[in-house]
């Protein structure tokens, strides 16, 4: 064995998507991985340490690539890393090219491109057991000879070849030069694509000399599975079933741990209140910080579950089939087939949905999907719809048998989808305009999922959410808490601006306890309460008064907060839920200054329309910021969604009035 290298080695892992790169990376680095973005872009940078037979090396996982031509951002970054031009990344001493033995020719294409960079390359041949099972034979030595490059057959799961790979990588690093043929002098005058042809004819020869196909007629298992899974009819049925399961998981199963987390944080908050002296600090800790942390952590069950499914679907190869089935439909609005699953997931919650858009390679396609995902009616909107329906439309029917509540619910979901379709259509023709990216998508062989890869991906996503989005969410939670908490002075600072304080207590009808009344009073006096007054002229054309304004401001923390804020402001105590009869009657009885009712069925409908379309979710904005690596996109999202929501609510209210509704 050679003496210790003077410097720690840097090794890059390159290869096609689906070649087994992630599995190898996980096997080599173990749990010690770092995931970050390359500065200024959304391309992910995955690094870890590889114990190379006793010597630690830095391992960089390059994005999965079919080519290094630098036509996409991923390719550009990979190129820069290999040439050492990428800031903050050391030029790799060796590139390990992961090559799928069952798909040799196309996988070797990117390897021949690596040769051009004159960097030492070691080929790690994966899936060799599958290849041999199909009665094919491969002569690894011969292939190595033909490529003039070391080739090692590996199996990341069993550990086969890993030691040998480490040896070859160290040897290659010591030699420091590659004997492999370069294609950079191919005659481009013979046509613009001469180099591509030259590479493929070199590959074809190398493959022909080193492999033997004994039974090419044998029908692949994947083809058999695809007879059902991409069948024109059954394929769609199965896709719907798969989506139902995913949907059920994030919509229903996730609520069990979510409720537990909420109760846990509620209990913790109460514990702090009981055991600390009353004062601002106690309130900050219990209502600001603990509630804020709880508001972040509560998303974890949904994120973990969705990424469990997404990792499974990706790893088995089904995701590409789902995109294949849905592409025609999605392309009608200018989106990629792969946008389908993230959008459907957004019906449960836009946060995991937006995180799931990572599977869409093209940036413009991905951003367009992110920008419309929050229009899908998420579970946080349900309490709002439920409250409004309970207060004004409960028990009503059309033609005696169709429930108005059901029709309204359906209408809200449809409205969200319709607006998303229109917005996606417009975005792809304006802000995100570009020549259509190639759809060309590999349908990889079906494979049993690698449990470790699946779990690691799931945990990485959850951790990234906590680290990046969590901090922003916590900061905004505390800000919103402060807006509703300060100023503490209970003597009305500007008595003239809050003339409805007394009448509003009468509105509620019941006899509020002192605590509840105090809480309500405090909210009205707070900055949030004053902001409600400030925005009243703006929301008046929607039929909203300043109290609804306060609730709108508070619901920026999360949409469902509308219910508890209305409860506080109408003196029924913050613990009332969406079906609380006291809250429902308080809403029905609320009066304006001139004695007219604040709420009518039309106001309720307007509020629902507003909630379908408005961007009232700081957590979503924080995730968009993380996923787009810029504040511009979340701000744009907030701006245009609020504008659309306002416009639609305005049309609903004013239109309704013109039609004679109150």
């Amino acid at each position, binding site marked *: 064995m050679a003496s210790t290298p003077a410097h720690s080695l840097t090794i890059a892992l390159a290869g096609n998507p689906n070649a087994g790169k992630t599995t190898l990376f996980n096997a080599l680095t173990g749990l010690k991985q770092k995931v970050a973005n390359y500065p200024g872009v959304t391309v992910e940078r995955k690094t870890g340490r590889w114990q190379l037979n006793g010597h630690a090396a830095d391992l960089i996982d390059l994005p999965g690539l*079919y*080519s290094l*031509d630098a*036509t996409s951002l991923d390719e550009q970054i990979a190129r820069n890393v290999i040439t050492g031009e990428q800031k903050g990344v050391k030029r790799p001493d060796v590139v390990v090219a992961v090559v799928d033995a*069952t*798909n*040799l*020719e*196309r996988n070797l*294409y990117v390897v021949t491109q690596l040769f051009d960079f004159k960097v030492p390359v070691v080929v790690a041949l994966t899936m060799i057991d599958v290849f041999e099972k199909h009665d094919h034979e491969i002569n690894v030595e011969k292939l190595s000879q033909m490529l003039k490059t070391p080739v090692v057959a590996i199996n990341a799961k069993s550990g086969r070849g890993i030691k040998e790979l480490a040896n070859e990588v160290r040897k290659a690093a010591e030699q420091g030069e590659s004997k492999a043929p370069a294609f950079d002098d191919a005659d481009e005058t013979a046509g*613009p*694509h001469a180099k*591509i*042809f030259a590479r*493929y004819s070199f590959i074809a020869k190398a493959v022909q000399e080193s492999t033997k196909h004994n039974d090419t007629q044998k029908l692949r298992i*994947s*083809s058999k599975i*695809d007879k059902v899974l*991409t069948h*024109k*009819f059954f*394929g*769609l049925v199965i896709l719907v079933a798969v989506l139902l399961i995913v949907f059920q998981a994030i919509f229903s199963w996730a609520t069990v741990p979510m409720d537990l987390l909420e109760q846990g944080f509620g209990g913790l908050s109460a514990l702090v209140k009981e055991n600390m002296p009353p004062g601002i600090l106690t309130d900050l800790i219990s209502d600001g910080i603990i509630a804020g942390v709880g508001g972040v952590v509560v998303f974890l069950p949904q994120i973990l579950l969705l990424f469990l499914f997404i990792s499974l679907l990706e790893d088995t190869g089904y995701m*590409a089939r789902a*995109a*294949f*089935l849905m*592409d*025609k*439909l999605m*392309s009608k609005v200018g989106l990629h*087939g792969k946008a389908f699953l993230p959008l459907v997931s957004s019906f449960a919650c836009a946060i995991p949905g937006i995180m799931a858009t990572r599977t869409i390679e093209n940036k413009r396609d991905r951003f367009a999907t992110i920008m419309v995902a929050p229009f899908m009616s998420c579970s946080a909107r349900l309490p709002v719809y439920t409250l409004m329906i309970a207060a004004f439309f409960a028990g009503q029917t059309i033609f005696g048998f169709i429930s108005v509540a059901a029709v309204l619910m359906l209408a809200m979901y449809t409205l969200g989808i319709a607006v998303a379709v229109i917005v996606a259509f417009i975005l792809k023709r304006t802000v995100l305009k570009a*020549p*259509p*990216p*190639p*759809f*060309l*998508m*590999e*349908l*990889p062989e079906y494979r049993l999922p690698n449990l470790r890869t699946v779990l690691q991906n799931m945990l990485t996503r959850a951790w990234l959410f906590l680290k990046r989005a969590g901090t922003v969410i916590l900061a905004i939670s505390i800000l919103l808490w402060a807006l509703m908490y300060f100023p503490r002075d209970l003597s009305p600072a500007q008595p003239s601006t809050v003339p409805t304080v007394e009448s509003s207590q009468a509105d509620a009808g019941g006899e509020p306890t002192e605590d509840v009344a105090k809480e309500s009073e405090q909210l009205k006096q707070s900055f949030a309460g004053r902001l409600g007054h400030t925005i009243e002229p703006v929301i008046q054309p929607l039929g909203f008064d300043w109290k609804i304004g306060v609730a709108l401001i508070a619901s920026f923390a999360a949409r469902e907060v509308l219910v508890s804020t209305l409860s506080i402001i109408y003196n029924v105590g913050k613990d009332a839920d969406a079906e609380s009869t006291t809250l429902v009657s308080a809403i029905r009885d609320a009066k304006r200054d001139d004695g007219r009712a604040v709420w009518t069925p039309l106001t309720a409908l307007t509020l629902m329309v507003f909630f379908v379309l408005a961007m009232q979710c700081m957590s979503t904005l924080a995730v968009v910021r993380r996923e787009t690596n810029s504040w511009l996109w979340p701000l744009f999202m907030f701006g245009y969604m609020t504008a659309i929501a306002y416009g639609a609510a305005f049309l609903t209210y004013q239109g309704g009035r013109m039609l004679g509704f109150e």
Partner: protein
Amino acid sequence: MTEPKTLNHLPIGASGRVVAVNGESRITRRILEMGIIPGVLVQLVKSAPFNDPIEVSVRGYRLAIRRSEAAAIEVAI
């Protein structure tokens, strides 16, 4: 050999040899890089439920490609 036609007009299940990949765009280049170059054998395996995209077998792997993109690929049956 019969007259060349484009890949998107191939009947389901039919195979052909690529004669040319037309165009100078990024998409053309990407099609070539994925291994669909003149001389290679391609088979149209099936089309998706709404008749688009199509699944193509080439060099021992499967590729989904939109019909509009496949129109650039000339094949001889």
